């Protein structure tokens, strides 16, 4: 008998999948569900190559896979967080060709040849990105769950090259929710990093 070494991630994923299946089976179906299109096709697996944090990565994808799930479940880059999974919280923010986007709203199979940068690719080796250093210095987080998305969104904002004061930082960071309410410190961290960038 082979004993397989599970990672914590695989264990959580596999047990969550089992629990999820039971929950769906128990829900009894939805009364006004949209009828499924007749004869749904078996989705083709799409082969795409993306440039991820400077390295070419080949992926084989069901077309339903979001960029967020591809990053977390296939590439094991779990720095990008899943919050709402509907584009409302910003926890999954990554840079796509240098521009910030919600990874949960992007179908990964559409990204052949595109460039993706995640929180794992932001630092220069052991040298933190100025935004990462500023978030530590200004205590720009409590629980930390929204932090990778906040930092990637701020990185996108700095790329946009806008003049930034406190009010405009709040407006331009409105796509990132922090339920701990660390906003004042997030704003000061971004102000500091924008001076350096």
């Amino acid at each position: 008998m082979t004993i397989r070494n599970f990672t914590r991630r695989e264990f959580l994923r596999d047990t969550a999948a089992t629990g999820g299946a039971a929950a769906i089976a128990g829900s009894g179906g939805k009364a006004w569900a949209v009828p499924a299109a007749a004869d749904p096709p078996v989705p083709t697996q799409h082969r795409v190559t993306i440039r991820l944090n400077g390295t070419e990565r080949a992926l084989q994808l069901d077309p339903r896979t979001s960029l967020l799930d591809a990053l977390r479940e296939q590439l094991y880059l779990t720095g990008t967080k899943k919050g709402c999974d509907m584009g409302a919280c910003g926890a999954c923010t990554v840079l796509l060709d240098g521009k910030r986007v919600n990874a949960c709203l992007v179908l990964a199979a559409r990204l052949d040849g595109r460039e993706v940068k995640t929180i794992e690719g932001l630092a220069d080796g052991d040298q933190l990105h100025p935004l990462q250093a500023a978030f530590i210095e200004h205590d720009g987080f409590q629980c930390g769950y929204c932090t990778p998305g906040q930092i990637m969104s701020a990185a996108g904002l700095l790329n946009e090259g806008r003049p930034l004061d406190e009010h405009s930082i709040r407006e331009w960071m409105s796509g990132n929710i922090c339920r701990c309410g660390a906003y004042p410190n997030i704003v000061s961290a971004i102000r500091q990093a924008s001076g350096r960038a």
Partner: protein
Amino acid sequence: MQPFALEQGRDIADTIRRGRMPGTDYIAGGTDLVQLLKDDVRRPRRLVDLEGLDLDQITVTPQGLRLGAMTRMSEVADHPAVIRDYPVISQALLASAAPQIRNLGTIGGNLLQRTRCTYFRDTASPCNKRSPGTGCAAIEGVHRTHAIFGGSRQCIATHASDLAVALVALDAVVHLSGPNGARDVRLTELHLMPNDHPDIETVLHPGELILAVSVPAGAWTRRSSYLKVRDRASFEFALTSAAVALDIQDGKIRAARVAAGGVGTKPWRLPAVEQALVGAPATTATWQRGGRLATAGAMPLRDNRFKVRLLRATVTRALEQVGGEA
């Protein structure tokens, strides 16, 4: 999410050939469609990708502005000529969603986004727009954010786009291509009132595709603005909004373009307000009269009665901001 095939056409003609097949949806920026797929509100068997069709140009000429359907919201909002000559368009886009979504969302997709009515997006609720004939949960339910113009006994969902309100005010034209060839449709006529078929939202034929949107130049476009009122300061849909463009010469209004958002089952032009403004002096009294006329014919329900006063104030203030007290 139901399984689907993801395809890409070689060119526009090939894209339309694929797009006209039953059970097919086009995907542009995907910011709305991916939500609808996740919620099982859309269950297509095939998606046809509109990326790579070269539909992402912004063209400014003396005749007007032309926005390719696949132009990203953020690109249009930041375009210097749009900011200078059509500020209402830039402002409406910057008031929409959040920066991440504006980097994905497209001009064509924004016009065709589905309503934010929570019953429409919840497959456990009846909804005539999503599942025809099941009823409307909003009319007797929670409808604080719903329409005060254009509702029917079948549906009172608002059209959610800010951009469409600005474009409707500026007489925009939508350039279409479909299985039966190309045609132009005025944006005021693209969206349909719900009436007895709230599931049919536009005049688009199966497979028909928006290629671009044009805005004719006019003396009023430079003096224009978008004012949006919402439950929080940013990243929220409108309770009420107003797009205003005015041509004022020697203290007198020569031309006026006014439309409202957050209140209609489609982007809502306000011709009665425009008619009252033309020829009037650019004074506070005129702006207040315009605001009062904005709600003529409104049909509020139990929870959205506040939108009547709010819209009057929104239109008055937008007119004042654009027109000043010259």
